[in-house]
């Protein structure tokens, strides 16, 4: 049970509100080789059962992360995982290599699926060749656990999953946000500064669940499921579809302590149904 990148800051922001070391991992905000300002405001629009965002990977760059943020988070007693993005395979690899040197970061999540930046991100994640090129470059420079976060904005997500598995990914996480849009009909303008954004929240859950189920059958590496999980029941659906771990994203905004409740809820459900281990329900949907 982890919290998804971009929805939980560096964990510290939530420390007053819940025991942040009580969850399995915190995937911190997307980090790039060079600092990025992100997109202009407005970056967010509320939708039915969800939200659109076009933040655009605002971050101060990997060197700032290593020097200023890592010292603050390295002793949090859970898996602190860094989400890594870039605009070329070389950028991704260089950024990953610098994080490889940080002792208390056991894994990175490679973001080849951000829909909100022009120069990279999703551009790599929507073709097998693009996804493979990034994973190949990173795998040569990064020696710990490599998770690759997949885009749902593709015709066949299983092809991309297989392509990154072939290049040495240790795990895949899915889904990133679905590309969407919203319009203010009175102003005749889109609600986001760059017109389109990534859709997240409960509205994307059925799509995410279907893709997790497809990918879990297509690859031999562990699948991390995310997309609209807000309750223990949602999480159990993803486990039954074949995910061996889950991430909670947008729901953190509605209830900052939701991840602890989902963790406890999964355990209570397993107890109530006489399951000795979560393994008994993982992938039961064939």
């Amino acid at each position: 049970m982890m919290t998804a990148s971009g929805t939980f800051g560096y964990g510290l922001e939530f420390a007053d509100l819940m025991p942040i070391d009580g969850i399995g991992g915190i995937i911190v905000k997307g980090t790039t080789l060079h600092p990025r300002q992100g997109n202009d405001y407005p970056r967010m629009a509320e939708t039915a059962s969800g939200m659109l965002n076009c933040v655009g990977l605002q971050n101060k760059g990997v060197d700032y992360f290593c020097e200023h943020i890592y010292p603050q988070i390295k002793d949090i007693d859970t898996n602190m995982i860094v989400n890594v993005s870039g605009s070329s395979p070389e950028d991704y690899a260089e950024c990953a290599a610098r994080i490889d040197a940080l002792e208390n970061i056991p894994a990175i999540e490679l973001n080849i699926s951000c829909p909100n930046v022009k120069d990279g991100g999703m551009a790599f994640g929507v073709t097998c060749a693009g996804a493979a090129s990034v994973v190949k470059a990173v795998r040569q420079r990064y020696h710990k656990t490599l998770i690759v976060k997949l885009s749902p904005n593709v015709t066949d997500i299983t092809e991309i999953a297989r392509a990154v598995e072939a290049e040495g990914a240790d795990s895949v996480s899915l889904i990133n946000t679905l590309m969407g849009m919203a319009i203010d009909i009175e102003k005749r303008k889109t609600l986001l500064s760059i017109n389109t954004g990534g859709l997240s929240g409960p509205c994307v859950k059925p799509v995410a669940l279907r893709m997790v189920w497809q990918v879990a059958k297509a690859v031999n590496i562990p699948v991390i499921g995310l997309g609209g999980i807000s309750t223990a029941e949602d999480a159990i659906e993803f486990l039954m579809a074949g995910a061996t771990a889950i991430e909670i994203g947008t729901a953190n905004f509605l209830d900052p302590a939701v991840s602890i409740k989902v963790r406890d809820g999964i355990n209570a459900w397993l107890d109530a149904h006489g399951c000795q281990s979560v393994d008994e329900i993982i992938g039961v949907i064939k």
Partner: protein
Amino acid sequence: MKKYILDLKVKQVERIHQRYVLIKLTHENTLPEMMPGQFVEVRVDGSPSTFLRRPISINFVDRENNELWLLVATVGDGTKQLAKLKFGDVLNCVLPLGNGFTPAKQGEKVLLVGGGVGVAPLLYMGAEMKRQGIEPTFLLGARTANDLLMLPIFNKYGRAYVTTEDGSMGEKGFVTNHSILNQEHFDRISTCGPTPMMKAVARYARQNNVDCEASLENLMACGLGACLCCVEKTTEGNLCVCKDGPVFNIKKLLWQD
């Protein structure tokens, strides 16, 4: 300041205007410490079209009665649902969030300038100043006399000057037209209200060399500085209104127009 997730109990919902309600909340324990200018993220139940929490500024903290007051403009489905709350209902709140106004020091002359629902946080600010023995001066603007919110309570805590656009109360015009600005010098101005009003106040402050801070209300999601949706362009790059604000010194804002 430590943050909490609390189920607060609704003590009273008062319709003080066609478009505004005053919600008084309490809790079985003593309410946590909160600074003037900070805000609360409230969860809106019973409104299917309201997905995210709504950020509402802290209007007043009544320590004697252990009450938190929220002044809510009923603009959309979410805030209209809040207006329907009844005595005994529960409102789930994350609080206190953001950075408040700079506390006034002894001997300082501080002017609190508000417009519309933006007057809300200035009441708590003025009350805290009064409690420390520093007399606040309020300058409150509205369209008409009827739109001036909570004026009798402002009068309780300090001198309150008023402008209305139609001249139905106080001086006619905008807050920045009020004669008090030519008659007295202030050490600092804290302002909250519509952006054009705050920009005009900021312009006055720059021209007259008065320290000035403004409270922004960009659209936000998390309220904790995690999602980076509510950013404002500043001299330090994009900053989160929820975490780095909502109160900013105008020197940091790119409001030179």
